[in-house]
């Protein structure tokens, strides 16, 4: 350790270091230890170890914060900040990565693309997410974002011989790079105003400028384009349906859950940090964007026949609800976003996992017809899917209700009654298209008889997400306390 790299610095980034280290180890061990492709699932041990160490490091960080009575610990001269917010989001990434890794091997074996580096990519993406949730410096955030995005470009195109996967990858890559161009242009303007890349200094510089300063506005506009793109908010959502549909379903689940959670964390870091003093400027813009996002997501989902595409549009509309929490902007709203992200993780992962189980030899299994008669074929999956869909629609006593409840509560507290009414109306639309899936499962006759592609990992993951989706809805107190720790101020 030296003056450039103290033990405090080390303590603040150790989870990301662990993830990157095990990611590199997987790249090497894939060849050295497991030359036989059938042994590749043993690489899961490395993922489990990496997540174990990461979880332990996060636990140690929490311990340190409570033991010293601090709300945050900064490292690298303020570039990385470990606080309740970052730790909360990182737990979500740990759970999402673990679940996705566990269910992947069967799916990839069936698709004929089971390669060791897939698990490495999951870990690399997660180390990028770590910096998105804990970074408080423009450079750190940018590197975290790109580390996450680049690995996702590769993972979306992982089925090399599949035309849809290629297409999804190139669309995601081109639009993703385009949006990060805008984002980084906004960053350059922020740097120009503040002379520093630290978020705290940038926030101070923006506070001293007039509210409608053109440079602030330009920085806000360009940065928002990049951020809204990443959370797939309208009008920058075009990539999401294609990327979600074309990607391997396990990657879609990871993309829909972990990538979105990390982007929300990033968005909150920027809007609650540098741009907080310009709230009057961005509040109306974000309300329009949120309403537009809910409109596009919910209305476009109605006509979909591909389940992954339908869930993609539904995930766009969920981004709209999360934005509403930021528009409200009080503690209930920000806390509501944390609750929403947590709830969304389990229910959305669960819904995609059922689609993963539908993929069998020679059957793509993504169409509404493929899920027909699921109740008579494998009732367990059908009931779980029903729980996830009810939760996605936001019907009590499932977890989804809780997420929406806090968002609407914060809107009412801050007097945004119109937004609350619009949000509630779209819940009704959402129920309609989720029940298209339910009707297909319970009422229609099964078209083929092939059994579900099940594996021990998949059953475990489905069980965990199903139980948690119900548990958060029925007994929310411990989960709410957990989300409470994530308040940014």
């Amino acid at each position, binding site marked *: 350790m*030296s*003056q*450039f790299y103290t033990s405090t610095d080390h303590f603040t980034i150790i989870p990301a270091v662990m993830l990157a280290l095990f990611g*590199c180890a997987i*790249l*090497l061990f894939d*060849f050295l230890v497991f030359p036989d492709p059938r042994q590749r699932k043993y690489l899961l041990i490395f993922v489990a170890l990496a997540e174990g160490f990461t979880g332990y490091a996060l636990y140690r960080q929490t311990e340190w914060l409570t033991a010293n009575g601090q709300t945050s610990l900064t490292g690298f001269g303020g570039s990385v900040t470990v606080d309740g917010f970052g730790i909360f989001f990182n737990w979500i990434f740990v759970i999402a990565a673990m679940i996705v890794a566990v269910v992947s091997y069967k799916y990839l074996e069936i698709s004929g693309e089971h390669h060791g580096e897939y698990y490495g990519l999951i870990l690399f993406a997660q180390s990028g997410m770590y910096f998105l949730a804990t970074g408080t410096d423009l450079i750190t955030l940018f590197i975290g974002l790109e580390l996450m995005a680049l690995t996702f470009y590769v993972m979306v195109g992982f089925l090399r011989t599949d035309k849809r996967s290629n297409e999804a990858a190139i669309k995601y890559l081109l639009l993703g790079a385009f949006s990060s161009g805008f984002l980084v242009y906004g960053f350059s303007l922020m740097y120009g105003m503040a002379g520093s890349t630290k978020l705290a200094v940038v926030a101070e510089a923006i506070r001293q400028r007039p509210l409608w300063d053109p440079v602030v506005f330009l920085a806000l506009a360009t940065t928002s384009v990049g951020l809204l793109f990443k959370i797939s908010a309208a009008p920058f959502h075009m990539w999401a349906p294609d990327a979600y549909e074309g990607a391997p379903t396990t990657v879609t689940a990871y993309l829909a859950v972990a990538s979105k959670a990390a982007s929300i964390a990033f968005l909150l870091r920027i809007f609650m940090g540098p741009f907080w003093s310009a709230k009057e400027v961005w509040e109306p813009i974000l309300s329009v964007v949120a309403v537009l996002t809910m409109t596009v997501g919910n209305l476009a989902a109605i006509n979909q026949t591909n389940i992954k595409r339908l869930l993609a549009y539904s995930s766009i509309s969920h981004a709209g609800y999360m934005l509403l929490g930021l528009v409200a902007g009080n503690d209930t709203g920000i806390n509501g976003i944390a609750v929403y992200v947590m709830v969304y993780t389990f229910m959305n992962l669960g819904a995609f996992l059922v689609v993963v189980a539908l993929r069998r030899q020679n059957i793509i299994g993504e169409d509404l017809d493929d899920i027909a008669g699921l109740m008579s074929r494998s009732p367990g999956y059908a009931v779980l899917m029903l729980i996830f869909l009810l939760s996605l629609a936001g019907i009590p006593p499932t977890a989804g209700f809780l997420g929406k409840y806090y968002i609407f509560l914060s809107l009412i507290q801050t007097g945004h009654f119109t937004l609350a009414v619009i949000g509630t109306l779209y819940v009704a639309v959402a129920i309609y298209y989720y029940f298209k899936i339910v009707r297909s499962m319970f009422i229609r006759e099964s078209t083929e008889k092939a059994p579900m592609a099940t594996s021990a990992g998949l059953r475990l993951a489905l069980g965990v997400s199903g139980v948690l989706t119900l548990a958060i809805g029925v007994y929310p107190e411990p989960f709410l306390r957990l989300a409470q720790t994530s308040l940014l101020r």
Partner: protein
Amino acid sequence: MPSGYIPILIFLAVAISFPVVAILAAKLIRPAAPSVIKLEAYECGIKAASDSRGRYTVRFYIIAILFVIFDVETIFLFPWAVRYRTLGWFGVAEVAVFLAILIVGYIWAYKKGALEWV
């Protein structure tokens, strides 16, 4: 006015006039005896095999991808070289870690057969 740009203007004028003068002078002095052979791209006697805008083998692209990565990563070595004395052994260790990560990638590419010419 930026008087510092006057040398650049002079230089520009010289640079433009040089080829013009040379070509004009050559045109006035040389004997005119055009032939088909003189119009060929190379006068060494070998006919051009194909258009230079044709397709390359895909192998070049893979080499290019690897080159781009390993070439650009050296950017990070230059700042270290500038502050070598200040950073001391810490800098050496840091760069060793950085290179180790690159080498992992290199081993991976090698094992995947990306460097073999097929």
